[in-house]
């Protein structure tokens, strides 16, 4: 029997589209708010809202530790969480390549369901388009989410202050490393898996010990290094990192050693960078280490008045050097 695949007819809006929605999406996303109408009608939400959208393309669509479905939920959940917003509702739009196996689509939807349920966000509306063969790479997903900001939480990339501690919630660069290996461009094998995870629970736990948190940002594309430069710029401060304190998995170190890459610039999909007053840092790290997605959380540096807009590394020989600025594409080097 030939494998069932998505066809252009599935995207034409007729009976086959309904079938696809029934069979794949409704089966996984069903909840009282999931709409069959043109727009979902939501109950009233109290308080201030967080509202965000993100597009997901990842090749290959499936990798060790997750797939594009899980990623598309985590991305939006984590963006909301960074603003102290409890994720409430989301929508998702699929662009699927003609010929994409239905069983794979099913697997993606199942991962989305599981991840959304874990943090209690509801998928309330969706859209499906089918593009001709070669027009997209497998499947692209866009998710949009809305969340309710916890009373007292007030975070922004602008709020980093000299003296703040800089915390990461776990070892850096595992997602980027996993994808690099999954593409099999460089012939390297390792059992490293993506850190991809929904982090509302993580944020909720630290907000339960203190609301005095200045910045929370998820270190996705560009990794922790890029996030630090963004925040140094936005807040007009310097950041000094203790190189030895930055947690990096041995497997990631091995891959980076082979290819001459910097782990701080490899993407994460389940790591937050948190800026908080120094006297709260220990409390926050202890709380983080109790959580399943942040067992190796660590203070990696502090915010400085000087060196505005720069990220400085304190090295293993007690000197200071600058973290090279992010430059986009990661390329292996021999020199």
């Amino acid at each position, binding site marked *: 029997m030939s494998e069932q695949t998505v066809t252009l007819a599935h995207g034409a809006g007729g009976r086959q589209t309904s079938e696809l929605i029934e069979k794949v999406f409704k089966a996984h996303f069903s909840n009282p708010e999931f709409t069959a109408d043109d727009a979902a009608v939501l109950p009233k939400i109290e308080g201030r809202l967080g509202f965000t959208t993100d597009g997901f393309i990842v090749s290959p669509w499936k990798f060790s530790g997750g797939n594009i479905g899980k990623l598309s939920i985590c991305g939006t959940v984590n963006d909301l969480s960074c603003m102290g917003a409890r994720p409430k509702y989301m929508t998702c739009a699929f662009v699927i390549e003609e010929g994409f196996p239905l069983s794979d689509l099913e697997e993606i939807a199942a991962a989305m369901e599981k991840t959304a349920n874990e943090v209690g966000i509801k998928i309330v509306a969706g859209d499906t388009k089918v593009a001709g063969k070669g027009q997209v790479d497998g499947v692209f997903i866009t998710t949009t989410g809305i969340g309710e900001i916890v009373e007292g939480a007030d975070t922004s990339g602008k709020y980093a202050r000299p003296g703040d501690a800089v915390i990461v919630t776990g070892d850096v660069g595992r997602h980027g490393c996993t994808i690099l290996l999954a593409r099999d461009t460089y012939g390297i094998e390792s059992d490293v898996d993506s850190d991809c995870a929904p982090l509302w629970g993580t944020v909720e736990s630290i907000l339960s010990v203190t609301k005095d948190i200045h910045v929370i940002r998820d270190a996705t594309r560009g990794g922790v290094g890029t996030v630090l430069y963004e925040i140094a710029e936005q807040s007009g401060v310097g950041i000094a990192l203790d190189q030895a304190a930055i947690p990096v998995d041995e497997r990631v170190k091995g891959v980076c050693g082979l290819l001459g890459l910097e782990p701080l610039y490899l993407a994460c999909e389940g790591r937050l960078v948190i800026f908080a007053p120094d006297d709260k840092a220990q409390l926050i790290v202890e709380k983080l280490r109790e959580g399943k997605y942040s067992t190796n959380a660590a203070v990696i540096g502090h915010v400085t008045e000087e060196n505005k807009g720069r990220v400085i590394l304190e090295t293993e020989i007690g000197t200071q050097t600058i973290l090279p600025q992010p430059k986009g594409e990661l390329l292996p080097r*021999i*020199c």
Partner: protein
Amino acid sequence: MNEQMKKARDIITGYKGRPLRIMEVCGTHTHEIFRLGIRKLVPEGVEIISGPGCPVCVTAVGFIDEAVWLALEKGCTVCTFGDLIKVPGTEMSLAGARAKGADIRPVYSPLDAVELARSEPDRQVVFLAVGFETTTPSACLAAKTAKEEGLDNFSLLTANKTMPNAYNALVGSADAFIYPGHVNAITGNAVCQRLCDERGVSGVVAGFTASELMTALAVCIRGLEKGEPFFKNCYPRVVKDEGNPAAIRIMEEVMEPCDSEWRGLGLIPLSGMKLRAEYAGFDSRVKYSMPKITGKPNPACRCGDVLQGKCKPSDCKVFGKVCTPLHPVGACMVSDEGACSAYYQYSGLV
């Protein structure tokens, strides 16, 4: 920091003698010295300068143009070490060619490019063979494998370089050299020993970890204090006096010396390697009857002078204006440790 490192640091920071210029001639040393902040450690009067040891920085503009020609005019799949992708050519970099539809692929090893040619016989694969003695054996292994297997869709565009004649060109520009550990792992120490014995040129072979670099620097400073010419292998766990004879053999079997153009230093006689006549079928220039391509560097760019220490990056008109790490004009702005890039990122640092 362990005891050895502390001892090394004390020797380095405690130096109070005459001003010294110590030159490293290895891009990876430049990178590690930058990463470890070693320039902040050395006392005033000790200057660590970067010589022409980065294959990216010394690669002539015309070489990039040749690669772009193969990719765009001949439709070849161009495999390259990632380092070269952003280096500007006369018209465009390889990244620019890729945006125009060229098939440009970063690879980890030249042998991976051979594997690509083997698995896709309809594809014409070119590997950009740059680098010094450390890297050249890998390109020679690739050519040899391709010849043995009779692959007719694989070739090398060569710009391999060798150090001995570059050292000759550099004698006098520093009080001592930090020799590139991984080059000497292949070539052995004879050339460096001879420079010391015959011409009084001092130097140490260094490794790449914090401990290895600090040790080598400490040995170097002690040696200069004593005043006699010296040569010391500070990386014996990797570098043997005789080098790697099998690697030398394969280089001699597949390639032969040729004149080579260095960005900044110009043409240095017999400072390059090219494929021998028996391997002409694997030489991209022969295989594709390549016309003579002469690169035209941006006339405002002074990377050449910067590489020779004749001017500071900030003396260059385009520096920091049109030439930045995101939009490099010259090779020295491409990699983080390139002289211009480092200068740009450090400027104003407290």
